[in-house]
């Protein structure tokens, strides 16, 4: 059954087509509102410093990625008789996120790009349960959000840790570099990264030679724990060192400080990412260029890609269903919709945990070394499902 609103939308769209001659543009009849939600003082965006003054990394919120998506939609306004607007909501703290989202929802926003830390998700999921909303996770890789939380209102556009680590391990296995030495830092994020890595190692038949937990610092009494040379002093050979270090301070000391001349991956050197500014296939140079213009010269990163793709999914769902009706758009996004993420294979939403299936880029500082799924890792339905939680493995069954 078509709802009366939908019928109206169709008529409006048809009228727009007929009035295709050079008539002056009229204001669009339909509106799709998107809100970008972030938290003030989100620790994930704190600059990473060496000592005090030198800034090693200055991560930024992926709002510019969403803006690129909105700009791309501009030529469709006339065709669809629909405009797409993007608002930015900054919640005072993680505890205020749910309230801010509900407020915007009451004012008619159905689509949200969620750029908040993992601990804000549980109260948010509880607050939006059963509502006609779709919340796109654009920056959080936490596997727990895709497993334990398992919320139907979310679409995880950002790669999960499981996807990222599977991509990384596929590559080393394809090169037959299967003896891996693991360095793990003290933070919960490091532990989560290490867990995902160990799972991937087991999944693809590699082998961890030794697991070493490092302790950041320069204390000579702890040198067995803070010096990569001593940490890698094993009587067994290894092919690659994997480093899980979200603080980055230790990771940056690992290259050229190992006992053996070996490559490094994980938090430095060969990093699995959702996007990289040097990716130059599948139309990526044009997206990178549009992004750099929009953001004032910043390189496009994984979260920017996710924000861009989230907006693209919203816009394309309106285009391909010729509708600005939320439930029609949601059905397309969660169902048959497949989208061009400029990473080769088309991206789409997994029915079981609402993770977006996507390629993982394995990036060295100035070159994408490979794009996973690596050739040869096969799957019975979609090779992108060799990365991350496949249906038989997951604990989240939103499609049942």
């Amino acid at each position, binding site marked *: 059954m078509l709802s009366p609103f939908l019928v109206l939308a169709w008529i409006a769209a048809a009228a727009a087509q007929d009035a295709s001659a*050079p008539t002056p543009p009229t204001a669009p009849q339909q509106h799709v509102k998107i809100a970008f939600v972030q938290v003030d003082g989100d620790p994930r965006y704190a600059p990473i410093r060496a000592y005090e003054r030198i800034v090693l990394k200055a991560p930024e919120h992926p709002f510019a990625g969403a803006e690129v998506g909105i700009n791309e939609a501009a*030529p469709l306004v*006339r065709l669809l008789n629909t405009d797409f607007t993007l608002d930015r909501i900054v919640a005072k703290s993680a505890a205020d996120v749910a309230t801010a989202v509900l407020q915007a929802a009451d004012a008619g926003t159905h689509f949200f790009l969620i750029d908040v830390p993992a601990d804000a998700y549980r109260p948010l999921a509880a607050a939006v349960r059963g509502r006609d909303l779709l919340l796109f996770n654009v920056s959080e890789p936490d596997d727990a959000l895709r497993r334990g939380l398992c919320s139907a209102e979310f679409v995880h556009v950002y790669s999960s840790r499981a996807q990222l680590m599977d991509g990384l391990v596929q590559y080393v296995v394809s090169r037959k570099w299967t003896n891996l030495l693991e360095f793990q830092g003290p933070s919960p994020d490091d532990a989560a990264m290490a867990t995902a890595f160990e799972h991937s190692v087991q999944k693809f038949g590699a082998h961890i030679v030794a697991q070493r937990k490092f302790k950041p610092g320069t204390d000579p009494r702890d040198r067995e724990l803070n010096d990569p040379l001593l940490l890698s002093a094993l009587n067994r050979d290894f092919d690659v060192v994997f480093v899980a270090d979200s603080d980055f301070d230790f990771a940056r000391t690992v290259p050229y400080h190992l006992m053996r001349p070996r490559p490094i991956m994980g938090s430095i050197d060969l990093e699995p990412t959702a996007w990289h500014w040097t990716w130059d296939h599948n139309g990526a140079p044009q997206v990178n260029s549009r992004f750099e213009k929009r953001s004032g010269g910043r390189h496009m990163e994984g979260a920017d890609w996710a924000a861009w793709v989230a907006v693209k999914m919203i816009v394309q769902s309106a285009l391909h269903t010729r509708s600005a009706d939320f439930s029609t758009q949601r059905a397309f996004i969660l169902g048959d919709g497949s989208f*061009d993420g400029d990473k080769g294979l088309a991206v789409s939403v997994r029915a079981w945990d609402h993770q977006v299936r996507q390629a993982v880029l394995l990036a060295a500082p100035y070159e994408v070394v490979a794009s996973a799924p690596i050739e040869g890792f096969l799957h019975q339905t979609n090779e992108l499902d060799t990365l991350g939680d496949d249906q038989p493995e997951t604990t989240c069954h939103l499609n049942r």
Partner: protein
Amino acid sequence: MNGCPMLRLAAALALVLAITPAEAKDTGLIYVSNEKSNNILVVDPKTYKIVNDIAVSRRPRDMHFNADHSKLYVACGDDDVIDVIDVATFKVVGKLVTGSSPETFAMDETRRRIYVSDEESSTLAIINMDRNIIEKEVPTGAEPEGVLVSADGKTVYVTSEVGDLVHAIDADSGYVTQDVVVGTRPRRFAATPDGKELWVSTEMAGEVYIIDRQKFVVTGKIDFLPPGMRKSDVTPVGLVMTKDGKTAYVALGHAAHVAVVDVPTRAVQGYILVGKRSWGVTLSRDEKTLYVANGLGDDITIIDTASRKAVISIPVGRVPWGIVVDD
């Protein structure tokens, strides 16, 4: 006046031949634009040797000859110009200013116009060839790519790679008059000679969409899957149709094959192995030879269309994009 007219004609012809360099007409020379080495390489069709190397503006991509083949126009994406090459001397003799990052274009010499898609400014620029000015910029969907002008010059068709759209633009007014939604990442066009159908390659969908030009709706699509390849590698871009409207050749990108399609039945008749990321494709005038530029193989493949077999692959510059033949 004495002498027979035939003799006088022959004499006149001899004179013409004497003053026109041999390379200027029907030479069969193959021109390849190389995106990353910023040059056009000229390949001899008989010896398969590179006989000329023309330095052009940065990132040369689409190329077209004018009607008498005296000039070759080359869109150069990183310098925002179309270089004009004098075919007789192999020299760049002029530049037409375009919008940001020109990719492909079409020429209408009757109206003295060039229609060029400017990938980064998301517009179709209408350029006056004689005055070297942009007369109008028509807003399109993001990343416009393929451009085709109707035979009567009244309609210009443009694809939007990001918008999944084909626009029909009224050439006189410079407005988009119709849009049709096609598969993901539409790239290039071929038109059936009867003027009824428009064929559009959709790179990410891995298909060719067929548009009825009268009704401006999608009336069909063609799938491809060369033996031993994965569907995800099938990324069709370049396509070309024979003059009798019977056969189309579609370059399948990362699938490293060219598909041969029977146009009336829309059935794929076979696949020809070429190089990696084959995009640019063109036919010789007698349609006995097909030329394919392999973007990620840094070479071109020459195919005998009768036997549907590759004759030879020739190394060219870095990232060959377009290929045209002077015949």
